[in-house]
């Protein structure tokens, strides 16, 4: 594999095959990821097998810089899970003590996940956990008072594409980026297998008012998953 070492953003770095984020809470590891010191900066390894966003950054054929939000901006993360990706996003978007002034609105339906996110938000200011059903936009809309430049949706349930279109129409700022991590196994059974489901999703997205930029195959990191990169027109 080619060596693409270099900075992807303020707090995201690629070194050889690995991705690293600038640890906002020095010395603290979320799982058992590696830490690496580089002068006054501590880098925390970002496992592409545990995070689909990291996998997409490695696999994209375009500029990976376009896939992550600007430090200090607001990100909407729908289907936040236990907070692995959120923590790395926070490293980049907020930094230590949120000196960038970024916000991550983390929506999840599961109280078990929200529990972990509440704990995470205690150590990392800038994370707003929201317990809500992603399909009911009014449930989390009060926490997203303005359109946001960056959205990631990873809900792993049927109807992800239509939900993504609704979320983007309501919350995505002009020229913002939205990522849809589509899980084939969650969509209804159809002829033609996973490939057909991804193609169908692609058609639905192209026929909406959104612009489909890239389709990133995450196979090898996360099977049966594709990351769609969407832009608002």
């Amino acid at each position, binding site marked *: 594999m080619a060596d693409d070492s270099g900075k992807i953003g303020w707090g995201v770095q690629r070194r050889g095959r690995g991705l690293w984020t600038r640890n906002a809470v020095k010395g603290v590891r979320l799982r058992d990821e590696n830490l690496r010191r580089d002068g006054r900066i501590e880098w925390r390894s970002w496992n592409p097998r545990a995070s689909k966003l990291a996998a997409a950054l490695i696999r994209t054929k375009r500029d990976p810089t376009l896939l992550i939000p600007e430090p200090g901006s607001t990100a909407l993360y729908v289907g936040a899970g236990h907070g692995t990706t959120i923590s790395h996003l926070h490293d980049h978007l907020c930094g230590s003590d949120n000196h960038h*002034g970024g*916000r991550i*609105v983390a929506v999840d339906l599961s*109280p078990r996940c*929200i*529990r972990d*996110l*509440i704990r995470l*938000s205690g150590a990392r*200011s*800038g994370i*707003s*956990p*929201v*317990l*809500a059903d992603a399909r009911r936009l*009014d*449930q989390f*809309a*009060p*926490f997203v*008072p*303005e359109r946001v430049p960056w959205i990631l949706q990873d809900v792993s349930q049927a109807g992800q594409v239509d939900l993504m279109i609704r979320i983007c129409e309501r919350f995505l700022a002009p020229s913002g980026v939205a990522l849809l991590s589509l899980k084939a196994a969650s969509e209804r*059974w159809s002829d033609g297998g996973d490939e057909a489901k991804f193609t169908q999703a692609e058609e639905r997205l192209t026929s909406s008012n959104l612009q489909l930029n890239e389709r990133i195959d995450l196979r090898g990191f996360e099977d049966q998953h594709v990351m769609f990169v969407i832009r608002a027109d």
Partner: protein
Amino acid sequence: MHLHWDWRLARVVDAEGIIIDESVWDGVRSSGLVADRIEMVRRKRMTPEARDLFERFPEVDFSSINPEIWPPFTSEEMSLLDQASIILARRGLEESAGDVDRRMEHLVHAVEEMRISWTTMESRVVEWVGLFLTGIDLDEQRRNIVTEAAASSSFEDLLQRLETDSPQHSPTNEEWVAIQGASSSAVEMSGRIKDAELAIRTHAESHIPSLSALLGPLLAARMTVAAHGRARLSRLPSSTVQVLGAEKAFFAHLRTGSPPPKHGMIFQHPWISRSPRWVRGKISRLVAGKASIAVRVDEHGGKAWGDEEIAAIERAVQAVRSRHPKPPSKRRR
């Protein structure tokens, strides 16, 4: 004219987007109060400001969705919003323990796991004791062996209790302690299963009374858990209810065209498992249909089914049985 509001203010806006009137929350802003107000907005309830405007303009249309032109949030308001999100997330987390479906889920799974370990422990003890006591009938005495071994103070005591002669080889003292310990664990485990089942029963009889009346509280709870909660079970078609628990056979049917399963866990109902083989499919279809109705009654707050409704269904089941007294001829088609 439209009435819009968020937790900070309410506005009446006309069709051209001109602000007709405005009411701003001017109380002391604490994160707790902000959380309360956001909860009102989420439930589409009016804030005091919205109510105030509504009284002045009773003819407005509602819309809680913020229009594009809305006062931007100050950084102080943003930070209140972030604090409120954590308060609301905590409240939601606390409320989740009030969800009977989640509580039944733990109980039902706990019973499943305990049953698995109980069967292995029980059969281990029976074979273990049987190794020494060659004179006893392992099938007839099966139930006794474990309880008696658990209650015995020594191996000799066990011999007396089971009324059998001294064997050629006896376990060593240490071995006996291990046997007795394993038996006590098995007995204790069966007690714990009963405790958990009692808890399931009480939950099922209040949460899913009609379904419990039809299927028995334990089976009703198991099916509700398999469907991921009462609300979801009530939305499933009865054809799915019929094969809940037979997913392996069902998807094998879709993949390979093998015969579809006739019943899933609903088979545990004696109306089906105690019926002749050739009517089980018909009866399970009937019972699954009634089960879907029952759970919908429970989900939507209907009057719970009693003996009368269940007796009527049992008559229908009887009718199916008597209509097909003999297995169908195999020479059809």
